[in-house]
């Protein structure tokens, strides 16, 4: 990587014109990723962006790295093949709430449980954008769209809860309006050895404009959200005066002094799950930051280790020996 150290953000921009709607949150995310890549001195020839279908899935075309724009929902499966075939590649998956949680739900959970060493960026705008505004599996109940004129009756997925339920080893949430926070979360995800799931709340200015403003708009964010920082006290509020602590099976608001220190690496994922479920409680802040971060065997590594082991134990395969094995007989 040393010879790449001088690369700038611009070196990660492809020659393709970016074609998202003006004002789309995707632009900021793209910029944050390109910046992150330059900062960590990534080698563009070792990086692969894989995507499914949806607005977010155009992402690979705009990165000056290897890229594979695949089919709807299946990107985790393509990434599994890429990463198992070559664990040296730095694989990034870009997906949306429809792509990952609906049509690709099965592949999403299995990629997380296998703990493929890759980064999964899920742009969550709680709406289908590319197909022009139908409700998504993360749209809230009652959401009125063209396909739910009387309000969506589906109960939504909570992406972080789902990732934890799939035994994901890393789960985080960030926000398209906060480049600094994104940079911090992307760094943590990139450093994580395993499947690093990052939910990015992303504004669809056409079909679900400012859907998150009740929670994350500048004037309310300090009160309505909390940043989960590993090893630090869980503190929020305009004056950083409030905190969170775990009491029995619940989380409750307390004073900053009484706040618990956040540990995303507990043996059980229960504390992280408790945090993820706070989204539904109007009396508690919505967490951003790092919910879960634990180590586990990576699938891609294990697949290749088994091959090394087999070669070490049995010797490299000899096709002739294999074909001539078993009960052979001669005919003169």
């Amino acid at each position, binding site marked *: 990587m040393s010879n790449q150290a001088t690369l700038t953000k611009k070196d990660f921009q492809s020659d393709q014109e970016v074609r998202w709607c003006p004002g789309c949150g995707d632009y900021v995310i793209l910029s944050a990723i390109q910046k992150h890549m330059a900062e960590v001195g990534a080698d563009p020839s070792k990086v692969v962006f894989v995507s499914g279908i949806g607005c977010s899935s155009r992402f690979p075309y705009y990165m000056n790295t290897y890229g594979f724009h695949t089919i709807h929902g299946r990107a985790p499966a393509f990434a599994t093949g890429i990463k198992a075939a070559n664990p040296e590649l730095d694989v990034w998956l870009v997906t949306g709430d429809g792509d990952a949680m609906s049509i690709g739900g099965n592949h999403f959970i299995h990629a997380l449980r296998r703990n493929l060493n890759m980064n999964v960026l899920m742009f969550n705008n709680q709406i289908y954008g590319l197909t022009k505004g139908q409700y998504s599996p993360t749209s809230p109940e009652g959401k009125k769209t063209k396909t739910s004129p009387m309000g969506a009756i589906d109960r939504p997925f909570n992406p972080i809860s789902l990732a934890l339920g799939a035994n994901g080893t890393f789960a985080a949430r960030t926000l398209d309006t906060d480049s600094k926070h994104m940079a911090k979360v992307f760094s943590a995800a990139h450093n994580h050895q395993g499947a690093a799931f990052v939910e990015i709340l992303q504004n669809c200015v056409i079909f679900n404009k400012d859907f998150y403003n009740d929670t994350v708009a500048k004037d309310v964010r300090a009160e309505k959200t909390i940043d989960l920082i590993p090893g630090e006290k869980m503190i929020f509020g305009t004056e950083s005066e409030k905190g969170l602590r775990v009491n029995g099976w619940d989380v409750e608001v307390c004073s900053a002094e009484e706040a618990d220190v956040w540990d995303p690496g507990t043996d059980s994922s229960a504390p992280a799950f408790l945090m993820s479920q706070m989204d539904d409680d109007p009396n508690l802040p919505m967490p951003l930051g790092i919910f879960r971060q634990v180590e586990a065997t990576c699938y891609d590594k294990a697949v290749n280790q088994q091959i090394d082991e087999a070669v070490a134990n049995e010797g490299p395969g000899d096709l002739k020996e294999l074909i001539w094995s078993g009960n052979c007989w001669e*005919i003169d």
Partner: protein
Amino acid sequence: MTTIQQPGSELPLQQLESVVIRFAGDSGDGMQITGSQFTMTSALVGNDLATLPDFPAEIRAPVGTRPGVSGFQLQFSANDIHTPGDAPDVLVAMNPAALVVNLSTLKPGGLVVVNTGSFKATDLRKARLETNPLEDGSLDGFRVIPVDINQRILDALADSELSKKDKARCKNFYTLGLMYWVYSRPLETTMEWLAVKFAKKPDLVDANQKALQAGYNAGDIHELFQGRYEVPKTDALPAGTYRNINGNQAVALGVVAGAQLAGLRPVLGSYPITPASTILEELAALKRFGVITMQLEDEIAAVCAAIGASFAGCLGVTSTSGPGMALKGEAMGLAVSAELPLLILDIQRAGPSTGMPTKVEQSDLLQAVFGRNGDTPMPVLAASSPADALEVTIDACRIAVEFMTPVIFLSDNFIANGSEPWLLPDLDTLKEFPVEFATNPEGHQTYKRDGKGSRPWVKPGTPNMAFRIGGLEKDTDGNISYDPDNHQSMTDQRHQKVQNVANTYPPTEVVGETKGDLLVLGWGSSKGIITQATIDSRQAGRRVSRVHLRNVWPLPNDLDEVFDGFKAILVPEMNVGQLARVLRSEMPHHNFISYSKVTGQPFLVSEITEKIATILEN
């Protein structure tokens, strides 16, 4: 038939040229093992042989019922044979259901070895029989050897510590021993197999070996049979070293060999499905060859992971059956659009929908050739026998990497589980087709085509060659393009590229005269049956030749010319005429006669010969 006296035996030893034997019992009776052991031993004796396993999809259907009957038919011969035989000479029936399900196929005057221990009133009821076929005249016209195998096995294992139930489970080896005696086969191969199979359970090795020996001894002691038979080793097979191989084993070897010839690592993404699962099992055991196998969460993930592996510079492979290939369709289309090599192994089974998973059919042909959205051409190859499956798999690998295209390999349940003597190939004669990855950015374009119409393959990780591709239409640089002329051109280029594959085929081989009254055109597993049927028909004075298609799509360039030599072309298929439909649309000026069979069973030789006779006599 000659009769000689075997030293040490009072019974005459009769020489036979060929025997067709069918073992039938409950799915829990171990008939597949019995049949495959008889096969292995017959192979080592030096017979030519062909097998037809025929089993239910249920692992254990209700005991003693007709749907639960599992059968294994094999023909072993001193001559060159091509099929497992139309009608068995011998039926070994372990229970009433096995007897009644199979009796109608037995040759008149054939031998029935029947386990009388399983013919109690309850057994008859399970088989939905109102009267006992042993007593009601059902077996008139057959030679019946009644043996109470249930009791005999308990007697033979009287000293064993095993439970009564475990002892009863050894009865298939008693039966096998008895049949080894009848056909003068040695016990060693099965004795050794048992020692390895149950290495961790010595009491089971002991019991099953005793059962085998007891069955063998019973032939002498109990004077059940009027004579013993011998089928001498064949001299019809070419000299060389042989082993038995079934189709799925051959495919697994073909994947390893094909990838080696291409200089690539094979990566199999798969999801278990009957009758393809054993390909995944076989390849999972070959990790020392550098084979990556991934059992994914579903059929779609399986093909996607394989495509991902190809994107990364390996040879992506996926194994499945018809229902699975239907699920993979969209991803296969992506491989066509992205132009990545991929091998799709479809081990066909009877459809539609779940159909009959363990029964044979060739009804995925149209799905293979056409079954995707958009204009999505793809080469399709079909294996004709277990041994042929290796060569065809290797050729499919070659086409995939030379033309940067997904390739479908069709096999079926008859090939997958059937076995035959396989003349081991000289590996040095296999032609390499090494892949050269593009590494030079100078003048490089993602979809710049070579003389064959193939595009360059760049391995991610290569400096200064980064590219982005996907399922959206693209231009020669690989960038997204909705330009009307570009789409026309790219569609034409993809079509032409696949057509160009036909330029690499060897000339079509006509077996028999190149001119005649009738050409029998087959594909897939019916090759042996058609071969025998055309031999028989020619002996009967008919001007019949045959061609067997390996390359189902694109069709060979010289086929039209071959067809010109014949008044009509008979196309027997285990579907409702799918290849015939393709041929009629491609070459409408020829007279194609479709002959369809969809019973879940292979054609009989007699069915084809009769069809030929009917056509030529009218």
